[in-house]
């Protein structure tokens, strides 16, 4: 079975205080797909994403990555296969320099330093940030921070990318570069976002979440024309469509 496959079966999760956050989530995402997870605030998007690399583990249901069940025994393999980009790049860029930050993952893999350097340089080149290697993270712009955070993830050579609000806080030009970059990847991509125009440009499939459930699963065109569904889930059609009508 492909390394690039990710599947959820009957996933249910309650917060420690008892609130139901995810309720019977099931889906199967195949090799190289780019899938958006959309929904209003508090719909459960981030909670779902945290299950995909085992950051959260629930009592009921399971997540399988490349046919491995996510659990404490498989955590290392799962995290090598699933790269996770967090919403606030400041949370992800914790090392003192860009190079060391991107090298954090490869070093944890136990690679020799020569290979670490190779991976870091390749990853930085992919996101167009080779020139930033020596900088401390606080001297980066928002778009540069995002690019470096992505480099840190792909330096681990994952087969699946999970991205939480990747376009959040970017200026239009940086956002466009990000979309082009994500389009160029051959990884399986799962993107949680409020940026519905990014979904149109990037994704071939959309999961709509509402109150911890998956309300709809389909092609963007079909989802975004279903006004009744969008209203129910605190959403509206992408801005580029609204202008046209």
């Amino acid at each position, binding site marked *: 079975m492909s390394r690039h496959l990710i599947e959820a079966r009957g996933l249910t999760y309650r917060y420690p205080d008892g609130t139901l956050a995810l309720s019977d989530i099931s889906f199967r995402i195949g090799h190289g797909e780019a899938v958006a997870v959309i929904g209003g605030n508090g719909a459960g998007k981030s909670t779902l994403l945290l299950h995909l*690399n085992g950051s959260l583990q629930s009592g009921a249901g399971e997540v399988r990555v490349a046919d491995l069940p996510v659990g404490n025994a498989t955590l290392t393999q799962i995290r090598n296969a699933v790269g996770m980009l967090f919403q606030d790049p400041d*949370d992800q860029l914790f090392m003192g*320099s860009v190079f060391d930050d991107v090298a954090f993952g490869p070093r944890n893999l136990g690679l020799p330093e020569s290979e670490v350097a190779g991976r870091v340089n390749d990853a930085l080149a992919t996101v167009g940030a080779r020139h930033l290697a020596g900088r401390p993270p606080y001297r980066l712009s928002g778009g540069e921070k995002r690019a470096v955070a992505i480099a840190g993830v792909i330096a681990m050579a994952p087969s699946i990318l999970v991205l939480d609000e990747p376009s959040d806080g970017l200026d239009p030009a940086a956002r466009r570069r990000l979309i082009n970059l994500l389009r160029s990847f051959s990884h399986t991509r799962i993107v949680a976002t409020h940026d519905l125009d990014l979904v149109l440009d990037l994704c071939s499939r959309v999961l709509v979440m509402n109150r911890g459930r998956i309300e709809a699963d389909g092609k963007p065109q079909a989802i975004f024309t279903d006004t009744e569904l969008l209203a129910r889930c605190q959403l509206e059609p992408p801005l580029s469509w609204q202008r046209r009508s």
Partner: protein
Amino acid sequence: MSRIDDTLRELRSLDSFAALPNTLTRLDPRAKILATFFYIAVVVSFDRYTILALLPLAVYPVILAALGDVPPSLIARKLLIASPFALMIGIFNPLLDRAPLVDLFGMDIAAGWVSFASILLRFALTVSAALLLVATTGFHRVCAGLNQLGVPRILTTQLLFLFRYAEVLAGEASRMGTARELRACGRRRLNLGVYAGLLGHLLLRALERAQRIHLAMLARGFDGEMRGPHQLAWRRTDMFFLVLCAACFALARSIDLPRALGHILLGALP
């Protein structure tokens, strides 16, 4: 809350000089750390009434600032900001120690004034040496050097995290402070209750951020061990720098150079 923003700018400004390509930034951080410590030890080892013999030691910060392209005005400003404690304790010396010590062209100068001047001089020399260590090395590399010199990794990791997130948290504090001031109707000062709420919220946010950072670290294979090789290469130039510094400091410690120079100059005059 502009004070927070100022402090942040100060924090960054010093570190940014370390990115400049020059002889000093290329040196091994260990050489500079050891030289700085030796320098400070020599400066403070002088007798409390020493002024003249300390003067030649000013050459070290001056050379560091020149080679490292660090503007002297920046160091001077930082010295001024840091000076109140030395001033406050030192100013008692002239008040308490009034015995005449030096006769300057018929004017008696009290021992207290001499020791006060000596305190200020020591302060300027030691503090500028420490500031220039960071400015010519960069905090990141200072920590790597400290680590190689045997400082526990738990502290060097802690220092790097602190430096990294001081900026983020101070930004949050500054925004919270601005939001409060905008609604404070001119009451600029914080009473204890408001203060505790403000800091409590800041603390909660900090704890949540720590949790998210931990998740981000785990997602990239963190297992409790911070790995950063920083294989520092000790080269001949580093050795040369350290030995040269040590020799100069030792020379300045053993010979009162200005007095000797003055003696020669006075002798040369008709």
